[in-house]
Protein backbone atom coordinates (compact mmCIF):
# COMPACT_ATOMS: atom_id res chain seq x y z
CA UNK A 1 0.00 0.00 0.00
CA UNK A 2 1.40 3.43 -0.89
CA UNK A 3 2.35 5.84 1.86
CA UNK A 4 -0.48 8.32 2.34
CA UNK A 5 0.25 11.99 2.83
CA UNK A 6 -2.70 14.11 3.96
CA UNK A 7 -2.59 17.64 2.56
CA UNK A 8 -4.84 20.07 4.41
CA UNK A 9 -6.85 22.55 2.39
CA UNK A 10 -8.03 25.72 4.11
CA UNK A 11 -10.09 28.38 2.31
CA UNK A 12 -7.33 30.27 0.50
CA UNK A 13 -4.75 27.46 0.38
CA UNK A 14 -3.19 27.35 -3.09
CA UNK A 15 -0.23 24.94 -3.06
CA UNK A 16 -2.07 21.71 -2.24
CA UNK A 17 -1.98 20.25 -5.75
CA UNK A 18 1.73 20.99 -6.13
CA UNK A 19 2.40 19.04 -2.93
CA UNK A 20 0.22 16.12 -4.04
CA UNK A 21 1.94 16.09 -7.44
CA UNK A 22 5.42 16.02 -5.90
CA UNK A 23 4.45 13.35 -3.35
CA UNK A 24 3.02 11.15 -6.11
CA UNK A 25 6.10 11.64 -8.29
CA UNK A 26 8.01 10.12 -5.37
CA UNK A 27 5.69 7.10 -5.20
CA UNK A 28 3.46 8.25 -2.35
CA UNK A 29 -0.24 8.96 -2.40
CA UNK A 30 -1.54 12.44 -1.71
CA UNK A 31 -4.91 12.93 -0.10
CA UNK A 32 -6.60 16.32 0.22
CA UNK A 33 -8.14 16.97 3.65
CA UNK A 34 -10.69 19.73 4.22
CA UNK A 35 -10.02 22.13 7.10
CA UNK A 36 -13.61 21.84 8.34
CA UNK A 37 -13.31 18.11 8.98
CA UNK A 38 -12.44 16.83 12.42
CA UNK A 39 -10.63 13.62 11.36
CA UNK A 40 -7.47 13.02 9.36
CA UNK A 41 -8.52 9.60 8.14
CA UNK A 42 -5.85 6.98 7.54
CA UNK A 43 -2.90 9.15 6.61
CA UNK A 44 0.73 8.49 7.53
CA UNK A 45 1.83 12.14 7.53
CA UNK A 46 0.23 15.57 7.28
CA UNK A 47 1.31 18.58 5.23
CA UNK A 48 -0.05 22.07 5.80
CA UNK A 49 0.68 23.60 2.39
CA UNK A 50 1.24 27.20 1.34
CA UNK A 51 -1.28 29.83 0.39
CA UNK A 52 -3.40 32.36 2.24
CA UNK A 53 -5.52 30.36 4.67
CA UNK A 54 -8.61 32.37 5.63
CA UNK A 55 -7.25 35.21 3.49
CA UNK A 56 -4.39 35.73 5.97
CA UNK A 57 -6.79 38.11 7.73
CA UNK A 58 -5.59 39.38 11.11
CA UNK A 59 -2.20 37.62 10.77
CA UNK A 60 -1.10 34.70 8.57
CA UNK A 61 -2.24 31.54 10.38
CA UNK A 62 -4.13 33.36 13.14
CA UNK A 63 -7.56 32.16 12.03
CA UNK A 64 -6.45 28.86 10.47
CA UNK A 65 -5.33 27.56 13.82
CA UNK A 66 -8.97 27.57 14.94
CA UNK A 67 -10.08 25.46 11.97
CA UNK A 68 -11.78 22.22 13.16
CA UNK A 69 -9.09 19.95 11.68
CA UNK A 70 -6.32 21.53 13.75
CA UNK A 71 -7.26 19.56 16.89
CA UNK A 72 -6.74 16.34 14.93
CA UNK A 73 -3.45 17.66 13.55
CA UNK A 74 -2.27 18.50 17.10
CA UNK A 75 -3.20 15.03 18.35
CA UNK A 76 -1.47 13.38 15.39
CA UNK A 77 1.66 15.45 16.11
CA UNK A 78 1.52 14.67 19.84
CA UNK A 79 1.42 10.95 19.00
CA UNK A 80 4.65 11.36 17.00
CA UNK A 81 3.08 11.56 13.53
CA UNK A 82 5.07 13.49 10.91
CA UNK A 83 3.65 16.99 10.30
CA UNK A 84 5.20 19.52 7.93
CA UNK A 85 4.10 23.13 7.42
CA UNK A 86 5.30 24.83 4.26
CA UNK A 87 5.24 28.65 4.09
CA UNK A 88 1.69 29.55 5.20
CA UNK A 89 1.65 26.11 6.85
CA UNK A 90 4.72 27.10 8.90
CA UNK A 91 2.90 30.28 9.96
CA UNK A 92 -0.11 28.18 11.00
CA UNK A 93 2.07 25.79 13.05
CA UNK A 94 3.61 28.69 15.00
CA UNK A 95 0.21 30.31 15.60
CA UNK A 96 -1.11 26.94 16.79
CA UNK A 97 1.79 26.58 19.21
CA UNK A 98 3.05 23.38 17.55
CA UNK A 99 6.30 25.20 16.81
CA UNK A 100 7.83 28.08 18.82
CA UNK A 101 8.37 31.66 17.64
CA UNK A 102 6.57 33.68 14.99
CA UNK A 103 6.92 34.75 11.35
CA UNK A 104 7.02 38.53 11.00
CA UNK A 105 6.90 40.70 7.93
CA UNK A 106 10.08 40.50 5.88
CA UNK A 107 12.83 42.77 7.12
CA UNK A 108 12.70 45.11 4.16
CA UNK A 109 8.92 44.94 3.77
CA UNK A 110 9.24 43.30 0.37
CA UNK A 111 7.26 40.37 -0.92
CA UNK A 112 9.94 37.86 -1.93
CA UNK A 113 9.41 35.43 -4.80
CA UNK A 114 12.77 34.03 -5.83
CA UNK A 115 15.04 31.00 -5.57
CA UNK A 116 16.72 30.76 -2.17
CA UNK A 117 19.97 29.06 -1.34
CA UNK A 118 19.66 26.89 1.74
CA UNK A 119 21.97 24.80 3.87
CA UNK A 120 20.81 21.70 5.71
CA UNK A 121 21.88 22.23 9.33
CA UNK A 122 20.22 19.28 11.05
CA UNK A 123 19.14 15.85 9.88
CA UNK A 124 17.24 15.12 13.10
CA UNK A 125 13.83 15.79 11.57
CA UNK A 126 11.24 14.07 9.40
CA UNK A 127 12.01 16.54 6.61
CA UNK A 128 15.79 16.25 6.54
CA UNK A 129 16.56 12.67 7.61
CA UNK A 130 17.74 11.68 4.13
CA UNK A 131 19.74 14.86 3.57
CA UNK A 132 23.24 15.46 4.85
CA UNK A 133 24.57 18.21 7.12
CA UNK A 134 26.00 21.03 5.04
CA UNK A 135 24.11 19.97 1.92
CA UNK A 136 23.20 23.00 -0.18
CA UNK A 137 19.76 23.26 -1.76
CA UNK A 138 18.18 25.74 -4.13
CA UNK A 139 14.46 26.01 -3.34
CA UNK A 140 12.07 28.91 -4.05
CA UNK A 141 10.59 31.20 -1.43
CA UNK A 142 7.35 33.07 -1.97
CA UNK A 143 6.23 35.12 1.02
CA UNK A 144 5.74 38.48 2.72
CA UNK A 145 5.90 37.24 6.32
CA UNK A 146 8.81 34.84 6.53
CA UNK A 147 11.03 36.71 8.95
CA UNK A 148 11.42 34.14 11.74
CA UNK A 149 11.70 35.57 15.22
CA UNK A 150 11.71 34.20 18.76
CA UNK A 151 12.97 35.18 22.19
CA UNK A 152 16.65 34.55 23.05
CA UNK A 153 15.85 31.60 25.35
CA UNK A 154 13.88 29.84 22.62
CA UNK A 155 16.65 30.54 20.10
CA UNK A 156 19.24 28.98 22.41
CA UNK A 157 17.09 25.90 22.93
CA UNK A 158 16.61 25.55 19.14
CA UNK A 159 20.36 25.84 18.60
CA UNK A 160 21.36 23.54 21.46
CA UNK A 161 18.88 20.80 20.59
CA UNK A 162 19.77 20.74 16.88
CA UNK A 163 16.29 21.92 15.91
CA UNK A 164 17.26 24.46 13.23
CA UNK A 165 16.99 22.22 10.17
CA UNK A 166 17.51 24.72 7.33
CA UNK A 167 19.29 28.07 7.14
CA UNK A 168 19.40 30.65 4.34
CA UNK A 169 22.80 31.27 2.77
CA UNK A 170 21.97 34.96 2.33
CA UNK A 171 19.03 35.50 4.71
CA UNK A 172 16.73 37.42 2.34
CA UNK A 173 13.97 38.12 4.89
CA UNK A 174 15.97 39.02 8.01
CA UNK A 175 15.20 35.88 10.05
CA UNK A 176 16.99 35.49 13.35
CA UNK A 177 20.06 33.25 12.90
CA UNK A 178 19.12 32.98 9.18
CA UNK A 179 16.48 30.37 10.10
CA UNK A 180 14.54 28.95 7.14
CA UNK A 181 13.10 25.91 8.93
CA UNK A 182 12.82 24.46 12.45
CA UNK A 183 11.63 21.26 14.08
CA UNK A 184 9.87 20.53 17.37
CA UNK A 185 11.63 18.62 20.16
CA UNK A 186 10.70 15.25 18.71
CA UNK A 187 11.77 16.19 15.18
CA UNK A 188 8.38 15.04 13.86
CA UNK A 189 6.89 18.52 13.37
CA UNK A 190 8.75 20.78 10.94
CA UNK A 191 8.01 24.23 9.54
CA UNK A 192 9.86 25.89 6.69
CA UNK A 193 9.28 28.95 4.52
CA UNK A 194 10.80 27.61 1.24
CA UNK A 195 8.60 25.49 -1.04
CA UNK A 196 10.18 22.05 -1.67
CA UNK A 197 7.20 21.03 -3.84
CA UNK A 198 8.19 23.77 -6.30
CA UNK A 199 11.66 22.29 -6.60
CA UNK A 200 10.55 18.79 -7.50
CA UNK A 201 11.29 18.68 -11.21
CA UNK A 202 14.16 19.77 -13.45
CA UNK A 203 11.43 21.20 -15.66
CA UNK A 204 10.75 23.92 -13.10
CA UNK A 205 14.38 24.68 -12.38
CA UNK A 206 15.37 22.51 -9.43
CA UNK A 207 14.95 19.03 -8.00
CA UNK A 208 16.48 19.98 -4.66
CA UNK A 209 13.14 19.73 -2.86
CA UNK A 210 12.93 16.00 -3.53
CA UNK A 211 15.38 15.07 -0.77
CA UNK A 212 13.11 16.88 1.72
CA UNK A 213 9.82 15.39 0.51
CA UNK A 214 11.53 12.01 0.11
CA UNK A 215 12.59 12.27 3.76
CA UNK A 216 8.99 12.98 4.73
CA UNK A 217 7.74 9.93 2.79
CA UNK A 218 10.40 7.80 4.43
CA UNK A 219 9.43 9.09 7.89
CA UNK A 220 5.75 8.53 7.11
CA UNK A 221 6.48 4.95 6.06
CA UNK A 222 8.46 4.34 9.24
CA UNK A 223 5.79 5.92 11.40
CA UNK A 224 3.05 3.83 9.74
CA UNK A 225 5.04 0.63 10.33
CA UNK A 226 5.70 1.43 13.99
Amino acid at each position, binding site marked *: MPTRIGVVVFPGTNCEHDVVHAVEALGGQGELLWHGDTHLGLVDAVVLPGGFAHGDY*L*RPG*ALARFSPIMDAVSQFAAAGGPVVGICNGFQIL*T*EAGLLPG*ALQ*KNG*RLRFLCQPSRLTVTSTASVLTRQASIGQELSIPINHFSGNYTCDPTTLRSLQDADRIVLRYADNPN*GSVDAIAGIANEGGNVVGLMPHPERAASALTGSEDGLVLLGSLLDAARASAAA
Partner: protein
Amino acid sequence: MRFQARVEVQLRPGIADPEGATIERALPALGFDGVAHVRAGRSFSFEVDADDEGAARQKAAELADRLLANPVIEQSHLELEAI
Protein backbone atom coordinates in the same frame (compact mmCIF):
# COMPACT_ATOMS: atom_id res chain seq x y z
CA MET B 1 -24.83 45.45 30.31
CA ARG B 2 -23.07 46.34 27.09
CA PHE B 3 -19.55 47.70 26.83
CA GLN B 4 -17.60 49.24 23.99
CA ALA B 5 -14.12 47.74 23.82
CA ARG B 6 -11.13 49.07 21.92
CA VAL B 7 -7.99 46.95 21.66
CA GLU B 8 -4.68 48.27 20.39
CA VAL B 9 -2.11 45.73 19.27
CA GLN B 10 1.55 46.65 18.86
CA LEU B 11 4.78 44.75 18.54
CA ARG B 12 6.52 44.27 21.89
CA PRO B 13 9.32 46.71 22.69
CA GLY B 14 12.56 45.33 21.30
CA ILE B 15 10.88 43.48 18.43
CA ALA B 16 11.94 45.05 15.12
CA ASP B 17 9.10 46.97 13.46
CA PRO B 18 9.97 47.42 9.78
CA GLU B 19 6.67 49.19 9.10
CA GLY B 20 7.23 51.80 11.82
CA ALA B 21 10.85 52.24 10.72
CA THR B 22 9.80 52.82 7.11
CA ILE B 23 7.22 55.43 8.15
CA GLU B 24 9.85 57.14 10.31
CA ARG B 25 12.36 57.28 7.45
CA ALA B 26 9.75 58.93 5.21
CA LEU B 27 8.94 61.73 7.64
CA PRO B 28 11.84 64.18 6.99
CA ALA B 29 11.07 64.17 3.27
CA LEU B 30 7.51 65.24 4.13
CA GLY B 31 8.74 68.06 6.34
CA PHE B 32 8.04 66.39 9.69
CA ASP B 33 11.22 66.91 11.69
CA GLY B 34 11.79 65.92 15.29
CA VAL B 35 9.59 62.80 15.21
CA ALA B 36 11.14 59.63 16.61
CA HIS B 37 10.34 56.06 17.74
CA VAL B 38 7.44 55.46 15.34
CA ARG B 39 5.72 52.12 16.00
CA ALA B 40 2.97 50.75 13.79
CA GLY B 41 0.06 48.76 15.18
CA ARG B 42 -3.56 47.88 14.70
CA SER B 43 -6.73 48.85 16.46
CA PHE B 44 -9.89 46.76 16.91
CA SER B 45 -13.25 47.74 18.34
CA PHE B 46 -16.15 45.55 19.38
CA GLU B 47 -19.06 45.44 21.81
CA VAL B 48 -19.26 43.00 24.71
CA ASP B 49 -22.32 41.90 26.67
CA ALA B 50 -21.51 41.01 30.27
CA ASP B 51 -22.97 41.25 33.79
CA ASP B 52 -20.47 43.86 34.96
CA GLU B 53 -17.33 45.66 33.91
CA GLY B 54 -15.02 43.06 35.44
CA ALA B 55 -16.58 40.24 33.43
CA ALA B 56 -16.54 42.31 30.26
CA ARG B 57 -12.90 43.20 30.79
CA GLN B 58 -11.96 39.56 31.34
CA LYS B 59 -13.75 38.42 28.19
CA ALA B 60 -12.29 41.22 26.05
CA ALA B 61 -8.77 40.68 27.42
CA GLU B 62 -8.91 36.96 26.71
CA LEU B 63 -10.13 37.62 23.18
CA ALA B 64 -7.30 40.13 22.68
CA ASP B 65 -4.61 37.73 23.87
CA ARG B 66 -5.90 34.54 22.25
CA LEU B 67 -6.74 35.97 18.87
CA LEU B 68 -6.12 39.65 18.17
CA ALA B 69 -2.49 39.64 19.36
CA ASN B 70 0.20 37.01 18.97
CA PRO B 71 1.77 37.16 22.46
CA VAL B 72 5.07 35.84 21.06
CA ILE B 73 5.74 39.18 19.38
CA GLU B 74 2.85 41.50 20.22
CA GLN B 75 1.18 43.13 23.20
CA SER B 76 -2.34 44.42 23.51
CA HIS B 77 -3.89 47.35 25.32
CA LEU B 78 -7.58 47.29 26.19
CA GLU B 79 -9.93 50.18 26.85
CA LEU B 80 -13.51 49.57 27.96
CA GLU B 81 -16.48 51.85 28.35
CA ALA B 82 -20.10 51.15 29.30
CA ILE B 83 -22.58 52.11 26.57
